[in-house]
């Protein structure tokens, strides 16, 4: 913004100068004479102030240039301190109208002035301006954000703590999850296996973690219904975690005898290699239900396509924005973005997940109300000005500088 205004000022000065020259329109000889008599242009309206919102040690200077007179070769910024020291800080090209002195000591009162050089000597000198540099503790334009962020963080931590103490936190039913049971049931009826694909990322990805939580639920259902569950993975760590989770699920359903470790296998780390491998499994085993939950990239399309072509019910879920559309178009149910995390929180009942979800909801609710009130105020404000300032206030609340 400062750059822009400086630029505008220069532009104004140039155009003003041009306009003056045009208006006067004197004979050429007169102009030449006049120039010789004129003095060298000097800086005027010099202002010095502490650079706001910094770690200190800096003073900002702004000035204007006289419009009439001989243009100097360059400008110099000079400074003197209370102890009598006088120094030349920098040389600047003509046309500069601002400078930031980064070498000031905090708390020292400095005198600044700008000199005009012509032919290596000082030909003109501006008035002096005084400033003391200091450090600030906070960016003023960010205080509003600090307060809102702090409140939301407090709410999240509050809900996590409440959850840890064992209080029930309500989370709505996720539509895709009810479909899980139906899909597994149908696979059983048809006597075909269920295929679960936990994405292609490793266990450090939160989407993979969410996916594995849902795998636990699917495993329990397949164990109850007695249909085989296939889990090909793209990472060896995911494979071992998946084996544990599925085993646990079969144990809970009282069918640990039906658990088959061989059904959960690691294929390859390679993206397209994995897609080709899973395609092979789909074509061979013809699963009746396919779950595509987790972090997917470009291979999502290849997987969903083959799944559709073997006639399986497909339930997908990912937070990858560019893959969601493909899943919506090619699958029967899709958990969109955050629904994936909500589903895993819903199933695991883990306080840290549920609490975060509630805290995020509080944040969303806050913004929602802010938007609604703000829009109403702004719209009424077009006819009744007091409301305009309400809208302006709300807008400032969410403005960060």
């Amino acid at each position, binding site marked *: 913004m400062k750059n822009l205004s400086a630029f505008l000022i220069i532009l104004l000065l140039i155009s003003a100068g041009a306009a003056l020259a045009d208006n006067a329109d004197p004979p050429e000889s007169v102009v030449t004479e006049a120039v010789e008599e004129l003095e060298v242009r000097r800086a005027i309206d010099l202002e010095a102030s502490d650079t706001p919102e910094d770690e200190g040690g800096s003073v900002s200077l702004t000035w204007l240039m006289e419009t009439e007179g001989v243009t100097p070769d360059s400008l110099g910024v000079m400074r003197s301190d209370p102890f009598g020291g006088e120094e030349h800080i920098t040389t600047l090209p003509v046309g500069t109208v601002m400078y930031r002195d980064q070498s000031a000591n905090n708390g020292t009162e400095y005198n600044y002035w700008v000199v005009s050089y012509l032919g290596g000597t000082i030909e003109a000198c501006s008035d002096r301006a005084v400033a003391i540099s200091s450090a600030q503790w906070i960016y003023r334009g960010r205080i509003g954000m600090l307060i809102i962020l702090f409140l939301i963080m407090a709410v999240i931590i509050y809900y996590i703590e409440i959850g840890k103490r064992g209080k029930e936190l309500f989370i709505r039913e996720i539509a895709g999850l009810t479909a899980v049971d139906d899909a597994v049931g149908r696979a059983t009826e048809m006597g075909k296996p269920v295929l679960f694909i936990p994405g292609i990322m490793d266990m450090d990805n939160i989407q993979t973690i969410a996916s594995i939580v849902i795998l636990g639920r699917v495993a329990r259902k397949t164990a109850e219904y007695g249909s085989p569950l296939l889990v090909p993975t793209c990472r060896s760590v995911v494979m071992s975690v998946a084996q544990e989770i599925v085993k646990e699920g079969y144990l809970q359903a009282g069918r640990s005898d039906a658990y088959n470790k061989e059904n959960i296998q690691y294929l390859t780390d390679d993206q397209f290699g994995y897609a080709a491998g899973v395609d092979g499994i789909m074509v061979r085993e013809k699963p009746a239900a396919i779950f595509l939950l987790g972090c997917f990239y470009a291979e999502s399309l290849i997987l969903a396509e083959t799944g559709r072509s073997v006639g399986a019910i497909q339930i997908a879920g990912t937070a990858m*924005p560019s893959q969601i559309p493909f899943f919506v178009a090619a699958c029967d149910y899709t958990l969109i973005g955050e629904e994936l995390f909500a589903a895993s929180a819903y199933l695991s009942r883990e306080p840290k997940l549920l609490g975060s979800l509630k805290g995020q909801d509080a944040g969303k609710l806050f913004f929602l109300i802010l938007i609604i009130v703000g829009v109403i105020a702004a719209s009424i404000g077009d006819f009744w000005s007091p409301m305009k300032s309400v809208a302006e206030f709300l807008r400032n609340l969410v403005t960060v500088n």
Partner: protein
Amino acid sequence: MASILKKLGNTDRRIIFILIALSVILPIIFKITFPNPVGAEPSRDMFEYIDAMPSGSDVLMSFDYGPSTMPELQPMAIAIATHLLRKDINVVCMALWPEGASLAQEVMSGVADSLGRTQYEDWCNLGYKTGAGIMIVRLGSSMKAVFPADRDNLPWEEIPMLAQISDLTSFDLVITLSAGDPGVPAWVMMAGDRFGVPVGGGCTAVSAPQFYTYLQTGQMVGLLGGLKGAADYETLVGIKDGTAIEGMAPQSVAHLVIMLFIVIGNVAYFSEKKKGGRR
């Protein structure tokens, strides 16, 4: 009818592959070109913003992509670089993706040679750094701390055009050519919102729809989305034989073919469903 459709539904993938390949290859071979009108698109905003900049301005151009998205982003880079250098704007290049450093060199040396601009005076290539968003925040306090030397290890002090650059705010505009993460969001967050430097740029078509929200809020001054954005910019700058403009004809044909595929596929699906068959 239904049986034909059913057969179509089971068509070997390879036939589909050949059809889509032909829809791209034929327009290229027969050099079909379509005029590419540029409406009130964000690519026009980008062009007008740069066009209004005075010569001598400093622009930071970040090459945040690799070979995998070159066909979309390289023509944008060439068109924007041509526009900037033609207007005598100083271009400082860098990369958030390692491959971007090499691609920047290729683009800039090509464009600069054709316009008679010199490296280190009119443009320079600082190269690649790790750290993405965190590195950009550091650029906000000191450019030289992050780039003590350029891509070819030439010290910062020995590059004349960098004398007037101290940190991100020294730039009048940041342009990012972004293939994903890190890319546009990192620049908008750090350079734009945190340090107040205007941000514009281009991205792959995959991520373009997301960034429309940054346009409405003014967090970005303009955006080129995918090959269409590149073709728009080539049109606006007046590059006649640009690869993106040339690509618009095969792109058109391929879009029609894919839409046709979707329609046929759905007709087959619904007619089978009507017959009582399960999916």
